[in-house]
């Protein structure tokens, strides 16, 4: 119960961050919040339903690695976009071309 | 670049600054223009070899422009000289290049002697050559060691400093001072060599080349030091000539020019020595040229000590020197090869006991002007190494 509500709170805070932040890096940080919360919820849910700890852990580990790869690509995009356009605010990306 | 952008250029000359308050120093702000970062290095910084301020425009870590800002050590020595008698100026010249005081002494004295037509006894000339070559060694130790320290090899600094210490000990027993010697005077030198000094000097000269070869092996042979200095801060020979570089900075770029040989003065023509010249004009060559010059200096000192034996001890001052020199009106310029390059002193006399005007042509100043040229395109880490390889001494740059 505690974990479920806590993770839901963290997840929805992540949603809020993604919706309100104008900065790409902060949006990515919001996505990290959602991923982290979902991962904890995943492990907790599986364990409370009597799942095998090792299977759960390996699953969560794979999620973790994929999320890290996503973050790396995201950061590379941000930095490259910044170097091209000198902007990091999402609203402004539409106004520039190339 | 650091001036405010909105300064109108077509304005009348600004009013003279109010002398009661501090001068309007523009402290560098951290300004970001696109990707370029402005970094202020100095005036108090571990590796500016004194009080130089370098304003660096960085793109990432690449130096786009480096602007040396000088004047933090300006004491108005040239102006002060106008209010002192010719002999009283000698201590001032000590403070020009405080790493090589003997040179400024000598350059100034040569100008005075030329102005007043004084003939210096040969023994004094030999002593001058000996102390100045020792000074060249001491000064080059202050260039090679810090080149190691700039790249992070602090131990090399200690090894070269030990050699400098031996020279300074010799000077101390000669004239009592360890930094500002006031030893070379118009018409000769202030003291004759004390007993046993020649033997001590021979001892030093005997061990010095071996010590230099050791430094050559463990500093210049070090793989990281080579990687840090080879191909860094390249100055080609044409630029070196057209920017008026001299001394090891020019010779490191392959400019075979040394006043001791090409405009011979004093008793230098009597000695057999060679002038080491570099090929690539990078930091490595500039610094290594100094190392070989120190070894060549040992050869000169050895020959001069041999030659000294021919002369009667005690004849170290020109005969008939008046208490107060008052040369006839006119001007004189003379230059010598200091550790940093061609050091010239220009004197104008109006017939009084004080120089009407003194101007010092300082090699360190001319060499420092090359910094923007040679540091562009290298990294911030290279910048301090390049600055060190130009070996500026700010007492002489700012005067």
């Amino acid at each position, binding site marked *: 119960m505690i974990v479920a509500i806590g993770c839901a709170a963290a997840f929805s805070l992540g949603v809020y961050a993604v919706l309100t932040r104008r900065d790409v890096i902060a949006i990515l940080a919001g996505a990290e919040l959602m991923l982290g919360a979902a991962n904890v919820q995943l492990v907790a849910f599986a364990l409370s339903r009597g799942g095998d700890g090792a299977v759960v852990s390996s699953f969560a580990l794979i999620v973790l690695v994929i999320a890290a790869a996503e973050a790396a690509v995201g950061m590379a995009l941000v930095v490259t976009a910044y170097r091209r356009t000198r902007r990091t605010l999402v609203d402004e990306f539409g106004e520039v071309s190339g | 670049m650091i001036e405010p952008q909105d300064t109108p250029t077509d304005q009348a000359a600004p009013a003279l600054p109010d002398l009661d308050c501090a001068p309007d120093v523009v402290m560098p702000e951290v300004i970001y223009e696109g990707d370029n970062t402005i*970094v*202020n290095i100095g005036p108090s910084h571990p*590796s500016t070899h004194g009080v130089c301020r370098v304003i660096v425009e960085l793109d990432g870590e690449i130096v786009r422009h480096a602007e040396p800002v000088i004047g933090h050590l300006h004491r108005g020595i040239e102006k002060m000289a106008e209010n002192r008698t010719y002999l009283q100026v000698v201590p001032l010249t000590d403070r020009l290049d405080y790493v090589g005081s003997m040179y400024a002494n000598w350059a100034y004295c040569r100008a005075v002697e030329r102005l007043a037509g004084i003939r210096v006894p040969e023994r004094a000339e030999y002593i001058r050559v000996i102390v100045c070559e020792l000074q060249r060694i001491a000064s080059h130790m202050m260039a090679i060691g810090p080149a190691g320290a700039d790249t*992070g090899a602090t131990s090399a600094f200690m090894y070269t400093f030990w050699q400098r210490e031996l020279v300074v000990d010799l000077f101390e027993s000669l004239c009592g001072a360890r930094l500002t010697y006031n030893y070379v005077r118009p018409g000769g030198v202030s003291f004759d060599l004390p007993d046993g000094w020649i033997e001590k000097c021979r001892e030093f000269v005997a061990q010095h080349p071996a010590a230099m070869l050791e430094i050559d092996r463990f500093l210049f042979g*070090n793989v*990281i030091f080579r990687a840090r200095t080879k191909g860094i801060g390249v100055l080609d020979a044409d630029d070196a000539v057209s920017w008026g570089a001299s001394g090891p900075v020019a010779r490191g770029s392959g400019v075979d020019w040394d006043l001791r040989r090409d405009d011979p003065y004093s008793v230098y023509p009597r000695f057999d020595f060679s002038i080491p010249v570099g090929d690539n004009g990078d930091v490595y060559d500039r610094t290594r040229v100094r190392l070989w010059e120190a070894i060549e200096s040992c050869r000169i000192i050895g020959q001069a000590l041999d030659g000294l034996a021919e002369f009667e001890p005690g004849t170290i001052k020109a005969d008939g020197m008046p208490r107060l020199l008052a040369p006839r009106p006119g001007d004189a310029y003379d230059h010598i090869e200091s550790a940093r390059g061609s050091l010239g002193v220009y004197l104008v006399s109006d017939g009084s006991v004080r120089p009407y005007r003194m101007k010092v042509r300082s090699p360190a100043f001319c060499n420092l002007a090359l910094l923007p040229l040679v540091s562009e395109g290298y990294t911030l880490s290279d910048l301090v190494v390049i600055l060190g390889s130009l070996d500026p001494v700010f007492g002489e740059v700012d005067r």
Partner: protein
Amino acid sequence: MTFLWGLLWGLAAVMFIAGGAVIGVWWERKVAARIQMRLGPQQLGPAGVLQMIADVPKLLFKEDIVPDNADKPIFRYAPMAVFAPIAMSVAVIPFWAGWAPLDSTVGMVFYLAFPSIGVLGILLSAWSSHNTLATIGGMRAAAQMVSYEVPRSLAVLSVIVLAGSLQPTEVMDAWQWWWIPLTFVGFVVYFIASIAEMNRGPFDLPEAESELVAGYFSDYSGFRWAIFMMGEYGALISASLFGAAVFLGGYRWLPGVAGLAVFLVLAMVLITAVMWIKWTFPRLRQDQLMTFCWTVLTPLAIVQLVVAGVVALWL
């Protein structure tokens, strides 16, 4: 109860590192002096050993300067974020047969993971100082430490593969003397990468004195500065102990207390070697540093890992 024990052990680790750092400063001054034809400290006590007692109050009572422009709370606490993970990493080092302060089943990964939190502290202190030189130093530190983590982890991985366990005490139990020649390349990679991780010469670019004054801790003074130094010496001590244990066998050479003595001597030798390297070599440049990491150390570590893996299969 566990919590109290943890607190106690944490305190012990901090005291261990602080004491080690104080002795390390004295030892480094002596080693450096030997290399530089000097004598080092010699005024206070025999061979200047009491100098270290004098240094501590000096650092404690120095003025704690916080720049006006700094982000003050972060500036104040960032040094702790550098120090704490390093103190934590000491916990998993196996000191005695079957005993480590924290005998975790994932101790080997723990050891590699926690010092990387220190990067965060370094970046925060650099950022909060609001100083260009510190910012450059922080960026250099981040790039360097994140990169050198890769060969370092790969090198340790070869021992993990041989031992077949992530638990340091089990690794020590499985350790055989012939692992030393087998993992020698890995050990060298670990050693070099550790020097880079602790920002010591010739990899001390983040704090390069001749360029950046003191890099990310340029603006620190007094005891906060001392915490950075403690962190640096702590990393040195911790990396040397860990390397001496898992690569060189640590206490396995002799039984009982003699084994512990051998372990400490091995670590001491490694510490001295690090100092020796620092005072002998010039500093690398940033691009040379990165090239060295990715084109020399990482391939070497991968080859070592493959070799260790093949041998582990054959075992």
